């Protein structure tokens, strides 16, 4: 029976990494749905797509590059540059459609230049694309030192529109499951990529170039394939995708600045690797990348739903997953290498197959066990330190994750306080940023409000906060599960060179009382959104 199982696996061997990725995704999703009511809402699934259009588009381009055995680390720079340049152009009054076109041309040009260096000057892709990334980021700062907000109506429209999904939503009340135009864009690109990878000569040549430790490139040349030309093209295509991702990013985030998307390239590569594509090239499926992206988003979502783990657990989790996948890939390569070597006449076909099945099973088991253990222990730990809250935990409001990226940008832009609260009876999510010159900007996800108070008022709040020992350990975060109608708070304060973020949930007795005083002061200042 085992041999038949083994045989079945080896027959469809090429799909194993893809199967592993999808399997992982399903398990993780089931885990999430089981643990958190919020994830059982179909909207949660669509949210995975809504929060990752730029990651997906960028990962698609990167996947093509990785197929050739190369790598492109410039994506984060190009995204930031696209966002910043678009914002600047829009500010200058250029038509958004022209802006789109210009950005795409820019992305392709940068990609083509890098590709030429890699193909003709034989520069290592790592170096060439890092240089590209630096160049792009540098250009951002030359364009503008501070963040440029985007107010263009087309952008707003694309950002704010909800496309309701027939069958899952009620058209009359405009409530229910939805996706956004950016999701349509990213999925369209995905389908185009599937076509290119499988049905075009360009796509097949890409596969032929990569893999086998660089020997494939040699073979491809001897087979008469246009290797150099394809390499240049693939980086150009990725440049296009990065620019496109940058456009999506700027629509999503609503601004442009050189500090945007820092570390983005790592997330992109992690998504590609988790999707089952080997970094050595030549193997992998575009479909895998889709699931790699979704898995990355899923991890983030689960961690935020959990609420007890801070967001940096996301990067650790992604690192562990990447490791697991790379480990599998590397072991596979070693086993295959032993098998194909023409000078050794070993008869270990069946043995190799069995080894592989065992390996997959083993690694999958290890990953699952490790993740469960991590969750278990952190959970236990959190329970011990936080005061137990006996209130039943059924909520009818799905808590959305804090918009930390946006908050960071506000701070980068000069805000001294960012204050976000979500939850409550009406399930709101309001993020406000207070600037030292009295300006207050609030964003509740669909609407933006601005209000001006006097700088003195802002200053008073700051000194009060400081006097309430905000920057000492008397002010700490608490994370217990919120009750019905409870609010969830996330506040960052910057004062005299110090910066600290505190989370809290009301309805409990464990948060320091000073927190509520300070919270009250801030609430009095920020604009009110109509219910």
């Amino acid at each position, binding site marked *: 029976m085992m041999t038949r199982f083994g045989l079945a696996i*080896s027959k469809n*061997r090429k799909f194993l990494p893809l199967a592993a990725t999808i399997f992982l995704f399903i398990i993780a999703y089931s885990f999430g749905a089981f643990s958190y009511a919020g994830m059982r809402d179909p909207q949660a699934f669509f949210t995975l797509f809504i929060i990752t259009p730029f990651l997906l588009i960028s990962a698609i381009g990167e996947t093509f590059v990785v197929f050739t055995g190369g790598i492109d680390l410039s994506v984060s720079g190009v995204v930031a540059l696209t966002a910043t340049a678009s914002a600047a152009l829009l500010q200058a009054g250029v038509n958004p459609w022209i802006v789109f076109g210009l950005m795409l041309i820019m992305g392709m040009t940068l990609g083509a230049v890098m590709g030429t260096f890699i193909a003709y000057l034989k520069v290592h892709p790592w170096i060439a694309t890092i240089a590209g990334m630096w160049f792009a980021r540098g250009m951002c700062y030359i364009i503008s030192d501070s963040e440029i907000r985007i107010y263009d109506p087309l952008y707003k429209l694309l950002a704010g529109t909800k496309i309701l999904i027939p069958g899952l939503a009620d058209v009359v009340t405009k409530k229910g499951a939805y996706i956004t135009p950016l999701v349509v864009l990213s999925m369209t690109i995905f389908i185009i990529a599937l076509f290119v990878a499988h049905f075009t*000569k360009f796509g097949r040549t890409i*596969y*032929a170039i990569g893999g*086998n430790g660089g020997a494939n490139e040699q073979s491809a040349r001897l*087979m*008469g394939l246009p290797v150099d030309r394809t390499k240049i093209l693939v980086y150009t295509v990725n440049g296009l995708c990065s620019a496109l991702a940058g456009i999506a990013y700027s629509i999503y985030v609503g601004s442009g600045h050189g500090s945007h998307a820092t570390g983005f390239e790592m997330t992109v590569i992690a998504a590609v690797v988790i999707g089952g594509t080997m970094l050595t090239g*030549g193997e992998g499926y575009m479909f895998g990348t889709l699931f790699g992206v979704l898995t990355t988003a899923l991890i983030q979502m689960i961690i935020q739903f959990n609420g007890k783990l801070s967001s940096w657990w996301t990067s650790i989790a992604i690192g562990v997953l990447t490791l697991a996948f790379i480990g599998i890939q590397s072991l596979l390569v070693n086993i295959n290498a032993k098998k*194909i070597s023409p000078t050794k006449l070993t008869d270990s076909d069946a043995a190799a197959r069995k080894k592989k099945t065992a390996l997959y099973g083993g690694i999958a088991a290890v990953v699952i066990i490790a993740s469960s253990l991590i969750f278990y222990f952190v959970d236990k730990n959190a329970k011990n330190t936080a005061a137990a809250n006996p209130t039943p935990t059924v909520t009818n409001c799905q808590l959305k994750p804090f918009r930390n990226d946006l908050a960071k940008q506000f701070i980068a832009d000069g805000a001294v306080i960012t204050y976000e609260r979500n939850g409550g009876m009406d399930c709101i999510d309001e993020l406000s940023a207070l600037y030292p010159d009295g300006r207050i900007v609030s964003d509740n996800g669909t609407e933006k409000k601005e209000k001006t108070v006097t700088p003195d008022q802002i200053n008073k709040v700051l000194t009060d906060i400081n006097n309430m020992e905000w920057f000492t350990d008397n002010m700490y975060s608490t994370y217990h599960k919120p009750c019905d109608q409870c609010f969830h708070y996330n506040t960052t304060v910057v004062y005299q060179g110090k910066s600290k973020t505190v989370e809290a949930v009301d309805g409990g007795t464990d948060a320091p009382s000073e927190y509520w005083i300070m919270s009250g002061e801030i609430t009095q200042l920020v604009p009110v959104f109509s219910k």
Partner: protein
Amino acid sequence: MSESTKSIIVMKDIVKSFPGVHALQGVDFSLNKGEIHALVGENGAGKSTLVKVLTGVEHPDSGTISLDGVEVSIKSPLHAQSLGINPVYQEVNLCPNLTISENILIGRQPMKWGRIDWNTMNAQAKKAMLGLDIDIDVTKVLGSCSVAIQQMTAIARALVISSAKVLILDEPTSSLTQHETAQLFGVMRKLKNEGMGIIFITHFLDQVYDISDQITVLRNGKLVGTYKTASLPKLELITKMIGRTITEFDDMTKLKSDSGHMIKSEPLIELEGIGHSGSIEPFDLQLHSGEVVGLAGLLGSGRTEIAELLFGITKPDSGTMTMDGKVVKNFTPIDSIERAIALCPEDRKKEGIVADLTIRENIILAMQASLGWFKYLRLQEQYTIADKYIKLLNISTPSPDQLVKNLSGGNQQKVILARWLATNPRLLILDEPTRGIDIGAKAEIQKLVLSLAEEGMSCVFISSELEEVLRTSHRIVILRDHKKVTELSGDVTEQQIMKSIAGSE
């Protein structure tokens, strides 16, 4: 039919040299339509260079190549392919991550409505493989197929995408089973009957007799001759490949008999039933101090495999090795060095020199490895050692700080030899130590080996040049087809050796 209409390829007076190596010295070669032509010769004979010239990888220094009576200059591998010359190497130059069908048709995939028509492509590929009498699922990934199938795929591609006139098969049967070899030969005969010219390079002489029509023998860059297979007996072929030529070495016989006194009776190393599956069958062997043991046999008979077992590059699957009466447990290079065993490997470039380092560094490398990280030889001492061996082996260089990559092949070989001599070994294994070295240097090394034996060293001397083996060995072990066949000592003649190598025919 006149010669000119029968021949596809005519190569005249091809000369090709690399720094310090005369790879081809005025070689003639011609291939006829509908002919399977075997190209044989030991390593360094010039076979691969000839093929490289024909396939456009290298350009000849002088000489002409004609294709179908028209003189051509083959500029690049792609150009060669477009002319109809297709090589199929042992390491198949295909993409193992793609399917068979893609490997055959990539670059020329049939299109329908602007997209690749996979069904038609697979059908075409299937047809191509069937044309070679192979019925296989062409959607299998190439890497998961046997080497035999991979070769067939390469052949199929050659046939499909270019009007192939010449097929060059370079050592195609090394990794094939008997059945697969028979299959390959069936394909070759079929193609031959369709008018294709096939160049068949192999070291398996039985196969040469099985399939080829003509044989060309190369030796040390020179053409020995072209013969009809049917009229050349095997023994004569072997003689032409490795037999005695007139040399100035006859004074060495005295040297040899003189040195024979130093041979100890107690064996230094005893191998009992040592074997490694797939490369050498279990055998027994004794090595004595003061004795030179020669390993004779054709390429691929298992000589290097024995060397690698002795030195610990490979671990034996069976048997025991005893040294000084104690059983040897660890088989790694560093353990061997610590046991005072040294191996001068066959592949100078890949396993011998570290090209980017200097002569001095290359010479003291193994010695330093055995001393470990912290007992670093003082620079002055390193130079002393380097200078000593530069003088001893007559290495031609202005200084020990020359980068080894700038030396000629012969000098590089001497550097490697110096490296191992510096470790003061008790057993020195030399695998093709004189390959690519000029006559004068060859003699030096052979004399050196004998004098080392006289000083008590045990030596294993491996060479394809029978005359060398005869000249330097006190005892000769004959290998054939991964098996030890017999040992000969005393007054051995070349005839005896070649008869053993040829086997019962």
